[in-house]
């Protein structure tokens, strides 16, 4: 029975190739968009986690500092809520570190008459404190200390990114639901067109004594196959897009503490399964409405 149904499903796909392709392309597009969203979401979450682990605040000093003044500022910072420790980085140490970081290109620094880098304090944050609002407030407090010229936290741009991330988090479920129903609707209507184009064949099957299961099962197989193929194509294109864009797109500063990776295997399997369920459900709704045996 299953063999018959599967064979018939394959033959039906071959015989109604264009309509089935419309369905596959629709599913592929939906899977592509949803998995691109998933890809962003997964990496954004990991990026924020990685940032949290390496969070630092740098306070740059205005001009030269006496040892007493340096100790005074350090004490003020250490007393602030959320600070795990403070290290003083002299302008000489910063210059050496910079030379080391830029490596072969350090020759460009030789043209400078004097070291342009200021003294700074590198502030480590306690784990319980790490959140964007808290760091923002801490940075403002440090900036208010007399003798501090500017305050940077290396991943400052992440605050803007986190805003986008939070927006995605909220709208994510809405997007998923919208795409789910839109795809379901399109798949169901495509299958209805297929059923309509085959109404005479279905009528003949009924006349020769086909029962409900015999008529329906191939369509369910078709739905599952369409979902599977659509997901395969959608994810395949996403992977190609990932390979083509990520190495060129990701900034070095980001890649130094974070690696953009593709959707993990389990989630890929889940997406394929969801796509197959959509194919199956699309068939089910169409069959229920169209085949009133």
């Amino acid at each position: 029975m299953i063999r018959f149904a599967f064979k018939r499903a394959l033959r039906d796909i071959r015989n109604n190739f264009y309509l089935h392709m419309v369905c596959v392309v629709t599913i592929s597009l939906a899977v592509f968009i949803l998995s691109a969203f998933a890809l962003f979401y997964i990496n954004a979450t990991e990026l924020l986690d990685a940032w949290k682990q390496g969070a630092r605040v740098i306070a740059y000093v205005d001009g030269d500092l006496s040892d007493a003044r340096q100790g005074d500022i350090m004490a003020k910072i250490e007393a602030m809520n959320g600070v795990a420790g403070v290290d003083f980085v002299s302008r000489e140490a910063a210059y050496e570190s910079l030379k080391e970081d830029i490596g072969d290109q350090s020759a460009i620094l030789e043209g400078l008459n004097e070291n342009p880098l200021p003294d700074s304090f590198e502030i480590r944050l306690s784990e319980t404190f790490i959140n964007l609002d808290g760091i923002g407030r801490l940075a403002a407090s440090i900036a208010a200390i007399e003798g501090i010229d500017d305050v940077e936290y290396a991943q400052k741009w992440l605050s803007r990114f986190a805003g986008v991330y939070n927006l995605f988090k909220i709208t994510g479920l809405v997007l998923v639901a919208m795409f789910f129903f839109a795809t379901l609707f399109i798949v169901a209507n495509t299958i209805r067109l297929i059923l309509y184009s085959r109404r005479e064949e279905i009528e003949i099957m009924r006349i020769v004594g086909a029962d409900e299961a015999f008529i329906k099962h191939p369509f369910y197989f078709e739905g599952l196959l369409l979902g599977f193929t659509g997901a395969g194509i959608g994810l395949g294109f996403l992977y190609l897009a990932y390979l083509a864009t990520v190495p060129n797109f990701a900034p070095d500063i980001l890649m130094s503490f974070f690696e953009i990776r593709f959707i993990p295997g389990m989630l890929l399997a889940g997406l394929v399964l969801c796509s197959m369920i959509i194919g199956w459900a699309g068939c089910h709704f169409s069959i229920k409405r169209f085949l009133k045996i």
Partner: protein
Amino acid sequence: MKSRPSAMTKSDGLPFLDDAAIRMFRVGKQFGEVSALKDISLAVHENDFVFVTGASGAGKSTLIRLLYLGETATEGYILVDGINLSRVTRRQVPWMRRKFGVIFQDFKLIPTRTVFENVALVLEVARLRPDEINERVCAVLERVGIADRAREYPPVLSGGEKQRVAVARAMVGEPKFILADEPTGSLDPDSAGRIFGLLEGAHQRGATIIIATHDNELIRAHSGPVIQLENGRMAMN
């Protein structure tokens, strides 16, 4: 083949004690305001070869459709093989239809299936094993003289060949009843004669044949009982 569903009982309590294979008692069929059949009572016995005749619109096709449950009667009772069709549930309809081989004037072949596949469909729906399907389909195609076209698709066949495929499909399941609705209506006399010969062959092998036709020459050439319909009523039996 599956056995009879348990919900069906012989005669179903109706007052018919004879052994008619098909019995209609005061059967009527309304389509909205239009009365297609009215007060039809008849009996067809096992291995009968019966003609249903009448002008276009007399109700011949409707009578055939009532038998294979393509329609349901709005009045009266129809017993097929002792089973009251008005009591057949939706789930039991496919089982009931497998008792019939049906032939249509417009052949009703699936154009995207080969000749072999069109005929095999009847056995596939009955869940027969592939080797048995293969054996029986080849045998019936041989019998109707179309084995050499088994891999062809219906659109490339002539009208006579298409109807032979339809006859093969009607016979392959070895049904108890073969219903033919104007089977020679769109064929030339030679092809019509050949189709009629095939139906006679099925009759000789034990099938009960009911042919709806307005071809009087065909009826005269055969000595079976004739049911004459006029405006949905029986004019002669």
